[in-house]
């Protein structure tokens, strides 16, 4: 399933790159790209346990940049 999520307070491009890398490794994520300029994350997820996967993605984002929020 493809999903686009808006992000808030994404301040650092290096962090965006780190998030991309971390999230791509999460189980249930096929691919993840973050557009720093548009503050938007484009996800391609496997259809099982989407809720759980999104939880994991959210905590991965928090770990890299605590101020950054996902508008799911």
């Amino acid at each position, binding site marked *: 399933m493809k999903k686009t999520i808006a992000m808030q307070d994404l*301040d650092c*491009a290096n962090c965006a*790159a780190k998030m991309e890398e971390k999230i791509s490794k999460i189980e249930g994520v096929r691919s993840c*790209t973050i*557009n720093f*300029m*548009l*503050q938007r994350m*484009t996800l391609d997820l496997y259809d099982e346990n989407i809720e759980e996967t999104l939880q994991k993605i959210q905590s991965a984002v928090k770990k890299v940049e*605590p101020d950054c929020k996902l508008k799911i």
Partner: protein
Amino acid sequence: MSHTKKAFIRICVALGVVIITLILKYTVNLNIWIELGLFAAAYLVAGYDVLWKAATNIAHGKVFDENFLMTIATIGAFAIGEYADAAAVMILYQIGELFQRYAVGKSRKSIAALMDIRPEEVTVVRNGEKITIHPSEISVGEIVVVKAGDKIPLDGVVKSGECNVDTSVITGESLPRHITAGDNVISGCISLDGELYITATGTYDDSTVSKILDLVENASSQKAPAENFITKFSKYYTPIVVILALIVGIIPPLVTGNYTDWSYWNIWLKRAMMFLFVSCPCALVISVPMGFFGGIAAAGKRGILVKGSNYLELLAKVNTVAFDKTGTLTKGNFAIVDVFPPQNRQEVLQLAATAEQHSNHPIALSIAREANADRSAEITEIAGKGLQAKTGEDIILCGNLQLMKDNGISCPETLDGTVVYIGKNGKFVGYIVIADEIKPDAKEAIAELHKLGCKTVMLSGDNDSTAKAVAKTLAIDDYRSELLPQNKVTELQVLKKGNNKVAFVGDGINDAPVLAIADVGIAMGAMGSDAAIETADVVLMRDNPTAISTAKHIAKKTLNIVNENIVVSLIIKLTVLLLTLFGVLDKLMFGLGMIVAILADVGVCVLAILNSMRAMFVKKNI
């Protein structure tokens, strides 16, 4: 209160406290503990979030980020009694961060403005009533009302009303287009002066404007080599600098045997801290993708859709541009360019129109537009040669040179383009030269490409004399003629030999294999053609050849900016690292040395961001 505003107030308060404390320190004899207390307060106001982030990051097992570096450096400064410097460094760091955030926010806003081409709400007529809804709720066949000044939300056909529309957002064409009932309209265009009732022919998601936005927004997922280089580079750069800093901080005091002397440790620890400051690669990591994105957005605004930063980088490196002829450099119509003899123009055309009146060939159609046929004529076809028409006593022959020779009519031969000869009752009357019209700006486009250092080649399926004439008129460097589609592929492979980077420009209809094999495939006049948008790497919404040179220009400018950023940031950082290592910065006060180090970090970052923003702006007429 917004993030930025809060940060600004904190910086002002902290700065105020530091200044007051400094004044007190040098006017009245301030108690050392009060001084420490005041500076520590300013330090905490300015930097509590940095300390907090550093702590949580360590808890997550992540060290070596900028918060950690700042914390270590400033606490170090407190430990050696440089209270004012510690507070000042923290405040400076926050000012730098604020600037950086402001610059990013600014450029995000300008990009959003570039891409604000999709309306948020729209009026439709349902059950005879006008209601306002989101465009995604419209289904095919519904009637949409677009008032003067509104953006057209979906592709459709005008049911009633007429007005001028500004298509510049989609096509880059600045002249407004007049449309009336029955015309097709494209989403994203703006009605300038009248109300339109439009029947939607597709949904919002399928609309041209949605597809364009989708392309531009997702373009950054196809990363350019320069971007990949930066990502890889920053992965190794920071750890290497941190390790170097550790070495700088520890080895010299140990090696020189001065390890019992605390002040000696002090000097090298300071140098190590400055080393750490410079180690953040943010300037590169932000500015490189930002430059590419700005370039893509600038191109998009001129009706040039680039599908990824990698194609923008390739386009900048292209040194050979190959063109398809028909539909790319020429209009693909058949126009009468010459009638011989000129004084009998009307007669020649009228006879030709009479002979060709039943033909559907494009040549016949263009003649029919120029003169009225004699409908009573009896027409016979002479296969492969032309036509014969009988009107009353007259016998008119109309066709190629062979037809004239067969009937014993002598006539002057001409070589340019396609020629239709006309004879009447065994005598030569005249001929008509038909040619594909060259697009008005094709010559300018070729000249621009030459100026940008590109070789131009035309690959044509047409006969040699026609191709030669077009190549000569346009001053194209080289041409190949009579090529079948598969021959074009072979020719392109020949052009690619050596280290040549080749772009191919075609109309996207039967050029798909050539577009695919070129380093950069450019499809032209792609409005509404999904196939072309699919296969090409760069899509030109308008069909004017100057868009090619514009695209090349934008690509070149973008790549220059990106390279400037990479080179300048690295040089500045390297210089500061070396200056630190050889102790040049120690001669400045501790605080000033730190300021230089911070400038090498955030200062360079802000500079690079500002430079990247230039990619978004392209001069009007290039």
